């Protein structure tokens, strides 16, 4: 039994949530549906941990679907690079599933709850599949599995606010256009190379030299994925989708979906086009993505400062944080990529914690959380507030939190390759982000009226997952060696592949 599982781990992490989503869809009992989903995400997490051990001494696991060897068959590759996003998705997936039950029963029609869990597991399966696959077309299929189920999840927020429907619709249209752009790119690449396997593509592209079809293909693929990754200015769908989605969905999407798309940007630039890196990826990274990332840092932060709705505020801040991550990638140095992997992990922890504490406040007070309704809530909900403050300070990048570690490495990488002006811009935008963070903390804690109000009883099933996230924020802030070492191994592996 065990060798069989070990041998098939790369597919098991995708199949487990996929199969359980079918089982969950036909269940009538909501509690049972939740138990099954928790079990499925727990199993996925176990498989991922086993896979971590496998990868740590094999460094590269190649799995042939149906035993068809590539380039004919579909290949799944787990290496030191892809294990990082897989770990993010499965850990956050488990924590968010544990956290989800109370919110889904409150915010969604009772009849639809078990179907919601089905979509939920489908999203997780799609996201993990996106990371593991090494086949350019299979990637598109997983892209659509994850984004279509995510759209349906976002639209389920319509019981609370009808704007969720429009947000879901816009996400669908933009996402579908982005995915179709990606398919055009893949089609053109297939037309000139005759292969879809990423490793095989990387071998065949250099022989073509500076080919017009390949340039167009590269542009289409990058643009399509940039829509999914919400890189400024293609982020229009993101704030509303995160703000009006049911609470647990905001947590899951904010922490995982854009991260996975950014990972695909890395894969396209450094794996598929890594062999002819100088011709295609380098210029697009250094001359386009770098400046878009800087714009995103400021645009997201400034939008967040003027935003009143707290969930939307966090979504705008996500746009800015995606800017930081893309900035690291676009520096095109080993330290730069490592810093963006560090921030990829850290931002998943930070945003999951922030969204979880904010939606928990919304759950206790049964109100939409905006800058006015939060007044004094911190005193009523001390545990939730405590976790919120830790994650918020981590977002700002205070020492002893994970946010500090990633800012440190990002600034170092920026200084090495661009000189003093880029670290300066990063520091300015971090300082600006303190404005909205302080606005929230001040609103939550300092309010005269709140002194008279009694404390609200906090539920352990909500605050325990939240405390785990807050603890991880502190733990990796004090001892970040695990994150840093693995990020540097990943970035070195990526940089060794390029020519």
């Amino acid at each position, binding site marked *: 039994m065990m060798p069989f599982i070990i041998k098939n781990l790369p597919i098991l992490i995708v199949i487990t949530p996929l199969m359980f989503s079918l089982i969950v869809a036909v269940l009538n009992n909501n509690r049972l549906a939740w138990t099954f989903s928790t079990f499925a995400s727990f199993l996925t997490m176990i498989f991922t941990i086993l896979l971590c051990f496998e990868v740590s001494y094999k460094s590269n696991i190649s799995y042939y679907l149906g035993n068809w060897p590539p380039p004919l068959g579909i290949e799944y590759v787990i290496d030191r690079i892809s294990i990082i996003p897989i770990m993010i998705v499965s850990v956050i997936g488990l924590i968010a599933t544990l956290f989800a039950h109370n919110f889904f029963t409150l915010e969604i029609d009772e009849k639809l709850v078990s179907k919601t869990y089905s979509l939920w597991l489908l999203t997780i399966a799609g996201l993990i599949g996106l990371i593991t696959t090494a086949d350019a077309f299979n990637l598109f299929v997983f892209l659509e599995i994850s984004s*279509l189920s995510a759209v349906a999840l976002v639209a389920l927020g319509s019981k609370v606010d009808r704007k969720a*429907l429009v947000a879901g619709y816009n996400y669908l*249209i933009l996402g*579908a256009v982005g995915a*179709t752009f990606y*398919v055009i790119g893949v089609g053109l690449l297939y037309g000139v190379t005759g292969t879809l396997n990423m490793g095989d593509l990387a071998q065949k592209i250099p022989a073509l030299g500076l080919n017009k079809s390949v340039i167009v293909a590269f542009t289409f693929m990058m643009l399509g994925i940039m829509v999914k990754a919400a890189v400024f200015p293609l982020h229009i769908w993101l704030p509303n989708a995160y703000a009006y989605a049911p609470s647990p969905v905001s947590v899951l999407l904010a922490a995982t979906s854009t991260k996975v798309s950014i990972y695909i940007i890395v894969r396209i630039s450094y794996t598929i086009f890594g062999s002819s890196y100088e011709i295609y990826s380098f210029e697009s990274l250094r001359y386009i993505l770098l400046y878009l990332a800087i714009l995103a840092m400021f645009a997201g932060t400034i939008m967040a400062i003027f935003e009143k709705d707290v969930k939307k505020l966090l979504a705008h801040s996500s746009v800015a944080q995606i800017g930081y991550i893309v900035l690291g990638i676009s520096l095109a140095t080993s330290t730069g990529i490592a810093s963006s992997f560090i921030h990829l992990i850290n931002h998943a922890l930070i945003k999951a914690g922030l969204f979880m504490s904010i939606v928990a406040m919304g759950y206790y007070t049964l109100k939409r959380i905006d800058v006015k309704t939060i007044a004094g809530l911190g005193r009523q909900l001390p545990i939730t507030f405590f976790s919120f403050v830790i994650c918020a300070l981590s977002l700002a990048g205070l020492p002893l939190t994970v946010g500090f570690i990633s800012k440190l490495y990002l600034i170092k990488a920026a200084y090495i390759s661009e000189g003093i002006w880029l670290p300066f811009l990063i520091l300015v935008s971090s300082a600006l982000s303190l404005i909205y963070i302080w606005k929230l903390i001040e609103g939550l804690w300092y309010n005269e009226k709140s002194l008279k109000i009694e404390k609200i009883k906090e539920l352990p099933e909500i605050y325990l997952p939240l405390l785990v996230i807050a603890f991880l924020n502190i733990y990796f802030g004090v001892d970040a060696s695990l994150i840093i070492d693995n990020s540097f191994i990943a970035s070195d592996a990526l940089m060794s592949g390029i020519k």
Partner: protein
Amino acid sequence: MIDQIFGVWNYWIVFILMMIGLYIVISKKSLLKKIVGLAIFQTSVFLLYITFGKIAGGTAPILTDNLNEIYSNPLPHVLILTAIVVGVATTALGLALTVRINKAYGTINEDEISASDLVEYHEKYLEDKK
């Protein structure tokens, strides 16, 4: 000149369909028309793939007595089968959302939807002030 237009006829059709689809998605206000535009846009990509795979005079890739038979590449067709399924799912989800939006707002015009949201926002604002 003639060769440039008619020799790559399929690609011209792909290009025209793609632009029509994308234009409809961007410019139309009706949510329903946007979905139609999206479907046209996706169809143009299907046609692009199939054009890659087709060889003039080639048959289906089935083993016959004649070993020198020219046959078309079957892979793009199979890929497009998958993409068509994805396209159908996208259209279905989009239409389902449009129905729900029509129920919630009483309209599927983008401008009227944002106007209705704005009215709701102002009413809530006035209520809060009281």
